[in-house]
């Protein structure tokens, strides 16, 4: 953490009231550091606990190498430590399978949602639809209102429906539900994106003889690509974390990572190191997305909120 409290330059900027300014800066940075600690400590705790042995857990040792010697114990129980990585491990296979399921479900659903969501958002902000008494505004509201729908309402009918369709415990089934879940958000983000694209570009393409779809594919999509990326990444995060539907609609075959983590929570008792290793492995992709793709997450979250 490279944070200095008051650099000379800042002190020079305002000569009057310097003591007051300095104390204000100390206060600001103090608050920032406090919250950064609150936000990061649980993550640090989880990662470090995965390297602890029982004694270090019960005694609450915190700093590796200083008050405890890191040990691969937690990762060994997952079959992911250096000495077990070459051997066959049923736990690791299980973990990798769940990981793969999560990946398939979240990426598949996000792709589908971004595809049909972008099309719908484009249509809604460029053309006037009329479907019986429904206009664009009503159709948009119809999509957005899906956000309100709590998962519990759909869960049971889906369980029965999927049983009849033989989609229970399949990734395809999960993809469909997750698409439904993130579609309103994707449409919300993409409508905001398309509205910022000047209409003249498409008009020029239309005059040149492009069809509506040609203009969309050749002119609009390349410009809207960053927006689509934002919608996609946000969807992946939301789907990756989803627990409710996954817990109800999947069992042995298509079970995702959150369900595995949840089922281990109860059974592991005090073997914190292995729970910590599992949690670390489950949140690692998200932490990386958070660090390296933060821009897109913020872009996706703030779309349409600020006018």
């Amino acid at each position, binding site marked *: 953490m490279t944070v200095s409290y008051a650099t000379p330059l800042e002190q020079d900027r305002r000569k009057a009231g310097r003591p007051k300014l300095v104390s204000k800066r100390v206060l600001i940075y103090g608050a920032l550091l406090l919250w950064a600690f609150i936000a990061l400590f649980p993550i640090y705790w989880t990662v470090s606990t995965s390297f602890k042995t029982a004694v270090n857990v019960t005694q609450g040792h915190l700093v590796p190498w200083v008050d405890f010697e890191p040990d691969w114990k937690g990762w060994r129980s997952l079959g992911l430590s250096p000495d077990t990585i070459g051997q066959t491990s049923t736990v690791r296979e299980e973990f990798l399978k769940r990981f793969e399921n999560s990946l398939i479900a979240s990426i598949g659903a996000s792709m589908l949602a971004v595809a049909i969501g972008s099309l719908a958002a484009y249509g809604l902000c460029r053309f006037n639809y009329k479907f019986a008494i429904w206009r664009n505004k009503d159709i948009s509201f119809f999509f957005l209102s899906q956000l309100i729908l709590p998962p519990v*309402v759909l869960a049971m009918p889906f369980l029965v429906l999927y049983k009849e369709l033989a989609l229970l415990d399949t990734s395809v089934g999960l993809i469909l539900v997750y698409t439904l879940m993130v579609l309103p958000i994707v449409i919300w983000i993409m409508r905001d994106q398309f509205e910022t694209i000047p209409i003249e570009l498409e008009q020029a393409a239309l005059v040149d003889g492009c069809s509506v779809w040609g203009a969309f594919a050749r002119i609009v999509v390349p410009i809207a690509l960053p927006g689509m990326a934002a919608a996609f990444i946000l969807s992946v995060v939301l789907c990756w974390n989803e627990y409710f539907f996954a817990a109800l609609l999947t069992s042995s075959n298509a079970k995702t990572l959150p369900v595995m983590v949840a089922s281990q929570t109860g059974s592991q008792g005090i073997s914190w190191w292995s729970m910590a290793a599992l949690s670390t492995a489950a949140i690692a992709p998200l932490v990386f997305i958070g660090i390296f793709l933060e821009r897109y997450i913020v872009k996706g979250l703030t779309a349409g909120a600020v006018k």
Partner: protein
Amino acid sequence: MSISPSLAASRQSRPASPLIPISRKNAGRLLIVFASLALSGVGLVQILFASGVTAAGFENWRPVLYAALAWAATLGAGQVMIRGERGQRALFLLPAVLFTALMVIFPTFFGLYIAFTDWNLSSFEGRQFNGLDNVRTLVDDPYYWNALGNMVFYVVAVLVQYAIAFILALLLNADIKARKFFRVAFLLPFMLSPVAVSWMIGKSLMEYRFGPLAKLARFLGWDSPAFFTTPWIARLSIMIMDSWVWIPFIMILLLAGLQAMSKEVSEAAKVDGATPWQSFWQITFPLMLPVSVTAVVLKIIFQLKLADIVINVTSGGPGGATDTVSSFIFREYRDRSNVGYGTMLAEFYLVIIIIFVVLLLKLVSRWMRKVT
């Protein structure tokens, strides 16, 4: 939405788009009729088979799904054939509308039907229509009403989250170094799955014996830091976890609002000698109202679905003190296999939150008009 007429106008002024030949229109109509017939044919065969009238049919309903997909594709193609360019435009919207309609409308109505049956997955008798029995049970179910009461607490807690998020957004918007680091650090909790958070915080940081938070609490003088044994403390602990995950979401929205605000107004206030306190309440806060309302309403909508953390940390305990409606219904499905009753609870909840959200939006928009 104001731009759409211009594009529509520009297309009409284009050199007359080629008229669609009648034969093509008819072919398109024929195609749609044929596809609809095929879909209803497949559906009918399966319905008759499932109800035991005929012997021939499919093993499951999957073929009906394929038929529905084929029907949707044909409908799109037919639209283009019949209506030409207007059909092409409709094609943008059709996939999303059909998808949502199929995925939502059918389950909702089917759910309504289930809600009036005594269906229990663990009983062998299958479902029986039982009229208003479920409603009667619901009215007398203290745990359900208790869960609804808890939702009131959880929704009100959003305001506290909003206040903290606002402070954080202001801090991030201040003239600071390493803003990128702080923004990433603050945002990270939002990325993590509630299930992992349940273990990370609920089951280990707050663990009675060895959890660092429990140790800190002991150090601060709370002798028995049990976070999940007394109702109010348990509720607060759940809310702390939820806040940890969700405050970044509100914060990011507010930060975007702060950054979009023009600096001139607040500088002018400073020149006029307003204290920071005054300039916040009289300039920043009112200007931020629209963003604030969006953030709070969105968060309330998400809050109404709160379940994962409760399911995984307390299972609603102690004595239902932390139960949300979703987690209560989840256990009704999961532990008691009580499908019919659980669905009735869910549908009832849906009605309540629709009324609540509509009222909320109405109130907010009226209030906003009065304020601005």
